[in-house]
């Protein structure tokens, strides 16, 4: 039996889809069977980030409404055999699927896959409710900004209300140079405020722009710092111990960040 993990944030534009694509791809590269599900009906993007946009025939809504079999809607990744995408519909809206249908769908998927990674839409309405309906674990993505952390806090509350306890945090697009200067909130500031466990920290990285342009997740790029960070997050998801911050031994935020990212000090 696999595990269903929802990637959510509240605020848009913080990197949910990029995080989903990279975690999914990293898990597949480790040998796990993975399905990524785009639940942003009407505004699908996960297909584009993965470079699979030209292969879509059926989608999530087709499956939910019985227009096709589940297997027909799953798109095989170009790089990994056991990695598939269930795309969102582009022409419907969020009400085309119900939380009950989502639950049924994730139940089916986790029979066959080790990880079901759900890309949640921005917001807290129907799309969010659909995305979390079948989830057993949640990863909340935020960036070091007041608006993003505020929305993350709200999401943590809503997840708890839906009995999705102990969500983990991914802090995305952090800039060590700005943190060092005191012009960006650091990791501890955000963990203190949100009071949730850290899954990982992803630095701002130009490679992400390039990899998104190409439709190839950054985890496949050995030179990408963000890719390295996502690989570590994927390992932590599987339960592997990849060292997080050690405050006592780190020298400054750069040292902390390097440690967090899994580099040797």
């Amino acid at each position: 039996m696999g595990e269903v993990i929802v990637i959510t944030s509240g605020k848009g534009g913080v990197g949910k889809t990029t995080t989903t694509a990279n975690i999914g791809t990293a898990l597949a590269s480790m040998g796990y069977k993975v399905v990524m599900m785009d639940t942003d009906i009407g505004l699908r993007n996960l297909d584009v980030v993965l470079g699979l946009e030209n292969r879509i025939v059926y989608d999530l809504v087709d499956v939910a409404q019985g227009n096709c079999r589940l297997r027909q809607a799953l798109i095989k990744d170009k790089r990994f055999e056991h990695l598939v995408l269930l795309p969102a519909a582009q022409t419907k809206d969020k009400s085309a699927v119900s939380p009950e249908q989502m639950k049924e769908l994730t139940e089916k998927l986790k029979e066959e896959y080790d990880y079901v990674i759900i890309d949640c839409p921005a917001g807290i309405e129907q799309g969010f409710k659909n995305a979390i309906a079948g989830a057993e674990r949640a990863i909340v993505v935020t960036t070091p900004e007041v608006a993003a952390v505020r929305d993350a806090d709200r999401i943590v509350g809503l997840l708890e209300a839906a009995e999705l306890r102990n969500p983990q945090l991914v802090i995305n697009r952090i800039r060590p140079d700005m943190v060092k200067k005191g012009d960006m909130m650091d990791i501890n500031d955000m963990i203190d405020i949100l009071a949730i466990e850290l899954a990982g920290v992803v630095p701002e990285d130009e490679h992400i722009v390039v990899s998104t342009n190409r439709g190839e997740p950054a985890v496949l790029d050995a030179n990408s710092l963000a890719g390295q960070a996502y690989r570590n997050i994927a390992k932590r998801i599987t339960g592997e111990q990849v060292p997080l911050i050690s405050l006592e031994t780190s020298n400054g935020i750069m040292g902390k960040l390097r440690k967090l990212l899994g580099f040797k000090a």
Partner: protein
Amino acid sequence: MDLFGRVLGRGSERSKNVAKERLRLVLVHDRTSISPQLLEALKEDMLKVISNYMDIDRRGTEVTINSDDKSVALTANIPINKINRISI
């Protein structure tokens, strides 16, 4: 901010601290935002219990959540008409 202060790195607070403080305040507010319906239900329950012990002015009763920078408090202002004689 004067140039001298900027050169010496003084005079104005680092923007990270400004962000933290603003975030803290906005979250104090967000986390205590209780719906009017819930507050009304709470008020009704409180009135029911208190009415067992004293005669109170239901119309004059006010129940509010007050938050300042440091704390959040539930405040109830309940005018008493008459205290019943109770034998307990």
